């Protein structure tokens, strides 16, 4: 009888022009993509704030588009993870398809969107880490002087000092461009539940080209849901300086170097997260070792 008193106002823009006028009027609105994250927050309903404003992005046709050519795939931010998979498992980077597969049921991937997975507040999903490892670019639409501007930038540039993705105020991610890569080493693994056990869960995304016994362009990103993403050019450089296969002491050495970075960025990781990070690192090294030893010698 009295329900609905705290009902948020829903704005449903159909194009970017409508979006820009809404966001100018209601600058503190919540962006609503697939809702898979927002709906899982304990106080999502009834809404805490009276007269909250929600902009539902699902009706903006432009954000649902995706295109690909022989160099890259470009997705609108409202493209669902399930649709991403339909682009072609063969052409998409393995690290991305593995990440989507990892989520499990299509009941979730059918609703979760690529843009939404990047821009969650308060918890980092495993996706931004994977996109960082793929050196993805994103298009940001933002309001500046009451006008909608567009800007392409590397996703890594959105990472703040704490390792979380932070968007400028009154802005949204509209497109994500993922370059097809010929990197022959791609590795994604996640352990623990990001949603229900964020204190112990973690994931790692790694891409590189292994040429004989050295790595070219290695990129590695560790994600800790309640902390953020650990990505650093310095860690990448450590990897490019290695010659595979690594023996046990070299592996321990690498582990130590990486943990120096981890400890300086995130002080309060749980024991299990640390142990799992070590386990993942070892799995990556094992795979690289195996690849180096079994790779046919090229002329």
């Amino acid at each position: 009888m009295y329900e609905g008193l705290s009902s948020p106002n829903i704005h449903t823009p159909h194009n970017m022009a409508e979006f820009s006028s809404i966001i100018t009027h209601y600058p503190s609105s919540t962006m609503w993509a697939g809702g898979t994250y927002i709906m899982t927050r304990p106080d999502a309903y009834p809404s805490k704030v009276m007269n909250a404003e929600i902009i539902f992005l699902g009706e903006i046709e432009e954000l649902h588009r995706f295109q690909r050519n022989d160099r890259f795939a470009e997705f609108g931010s409202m493209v669902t993870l399930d649709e991403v998979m339909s682009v072609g498992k063969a052409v998409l980077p393995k690290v991305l398809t593995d990440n989507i597969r990892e989520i499990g049921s299509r009941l979730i991937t059918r609703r979760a969107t690529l843009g939404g997975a990047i821009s969650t507040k308060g918890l980092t999903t495993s996706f931004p880490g994977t996109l960082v490892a793929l050196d993805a670019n994103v298009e940001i639409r933002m309001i500046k002087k009451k006008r909608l501007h567009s800007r392409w930038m590397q996703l890594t540039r959105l990472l703040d000092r704490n390792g979380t993705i932070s968007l400028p105020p009154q802005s949204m991610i509209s497109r994500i461009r993922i370059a097809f890569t010929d990197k022959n080493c791609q590795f994604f693994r996640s352990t623990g539940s990001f949603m229900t056990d964020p204190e112990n869960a973690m994931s790692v995304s790694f891409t590189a080209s292994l040429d004989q016994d050295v790595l070219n362009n290695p990129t590695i990103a560790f994600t800790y849901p309640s902390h953020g993403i650990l990505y650093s050019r310095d860690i990448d450089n450590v990897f490019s300086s290695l010659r595979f296969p690594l023996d046990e002491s070299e592996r321990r050495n690498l582990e130590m170097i990486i943990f120096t970075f981890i400890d300086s960025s995130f002080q309060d990781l749980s024991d299990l997260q640390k142990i799992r990070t070590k386990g993942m690192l070892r799995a990556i090294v094992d795979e690289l070792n195996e690849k180096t030893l079994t790779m046919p010698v090229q002329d």
Partner: protein
Amino acid sequence: MAERKNFSRYNMRCGILIRAEEGAMRIGEIKKPETDSRYLFLTADDFSDRCSIPVGDSVYPLMAKGRTSFPGDIVLALFAPDYESAELMRRDLAIEYVKEEDTEEEKPETPPDLEYGWGEFSPQEDGEKKYRTTESEFSLSHVVQPSYIRYTVTAWMDNANLHIEAPCEWMELVRVAVESTTGYPGKNIHIHPSPYTAKHDEYFITPAVLASIAAMATIKTGLPSELRDEAIYSRPGIQVRRSTITDEEGKPLSETVSMSVDMGACPVFPEEYQRQAMAGLIPPYSLKEFKGTVSIQCSGRYPAAFAGSLGYSEAVASTEFHITKLAEDASLTPYLYRETMEREKRKFTDYLPGFELEEQKKTARKAVQMSTYERKWSANTFQKRDFGLLGYIRGIGMASAAGVSGFSTAFSKKTGFSAVMTYTQKGNITVNTSAISHPGIMRRWRKIISDRICPEHPERVIFLDYNPETVDTGPDVLSRIIASFTPQLDSAAKNLAVLKESEALPVSLRFDAENTYYPCEFENAGYGTAVCEVMISESDYIPVVTELWASFSFPDILDETTLLGSVKRAFLLSLTENGVTIPPGFRMHIDITSTGTEGPVASVGGLVKALTEGALANALYQAGGARAAILPVSAERLEKALRKGGKE
């Protein structure tokens, strides 16, 4: 039965419960926002001195009175015109909790320790004979977690009658609870059972608690009230310490075992728990001396519920865990140890009859063969102490046991488990019982009765609807209704068939559990053996169960498919509850044979639970030592056990 009144939701009050986050706190001021007559707050004060529900000999607290005794204690019930308003109002409520210091906690009474034993043995070391002592400690930690099942109870008035619609397992408890907490006359309380789901039969207290509070709200406002809450899964913390003196060859001679059970803030059926536990603690091998103790303790934790067993399963699991240790000390594989040390017949005790062990051994042989247990067990013992080159460690464990059915004889004597059967003048047979069960079982009961009295007319057997005159047949938990009520009905029907010929009609027969007494507290029903394999990976420490093999032998099997389904379900449930992850490729190999003897298949859940916990603890012990074998297992606990202690 009075039909449910078709009232509009607009007149209804919707209630939610506000629970304390911590125990042992004094409830200070409750700051309620300003509300109008559409809202209602209920606290323990509204129930004056009637703020508890009688369950058996125990008293279950309804709401926290002045102080909270455990986390999750109900502090306040809040009724509003709809759930959203209630939820919003909850946010504006401020309850002040004051930490209590140095106050003597009032603990509910617990029964004295149950002790049982036989024989005497004093080890005398002379030059030839040497004795060894094997010790083990089996632990199950206290678990409190949401059950993901919401229970909704509705109360409404119709003239002088108070109607309650609740998802019931024990309708009489709901009525008694409402009567004792609200003071409303029992004959005017009508209970309407609504469909319920429960993984175990442990949630029978939840509907009674909800019904009492909803009834009070209805009595106060005169309006229909609905109250909903999520049932909480809570299982007791258990610790079993066992010490066995064996001879040089590892043959056990004397054993002392003590089991302590932490049942949380309010023990339910503690004496029955002791009896069931004792039945499980007595080992299958022969001993010159045995001393067992079961002690029940209370703590400031959420009151433990049945969780599918009243102690028997956990006690059996501890015995099975100990056998692995005995085998280890005797340098034998656990299976070989059983084959060598167990005799053909189990010793007759006050708790279990002296049944032949051959059937049980057969199941063990089958399970061991299917799983190639011996080979895997030996291979795993060569594992390095750390993860070594493979990056994972494995463990395999087995457990073998007999199931017991229903409740103990002592409990049945006390409770009665009565029902009334009447042969009417029209030639119908009416059964007055609160045990209204699954349609399949009802069909079977109908057939059993009609076979005795009117073989051609099963339709003449009528189970009376639930009403205030219904005879309380006791709780339908731990498969008791199938296990013990069925023979009770059969025997009563046999007597009634004779009585109807000699007495004037209508003739009634009140019957209770008297005619199903056994010489022991429990009767064995079915045997089984389970073998399971776990794998722990170095990279994540998640305990994964890779494969499970089980073999069972049951008496008369009615429907093999249904039985297989329930066995599988019980295994999966028990594995998940004990913390292991079930991967997509997980395979179960289950073999069920029928001995063809008379008797119903009951207590499948309890037996499977015992086997799972025993086999799992053994597998984890092999993988990570004693510290890893504490159930429920978790990645965090394994990480600590494997990193700090390694194998012991």
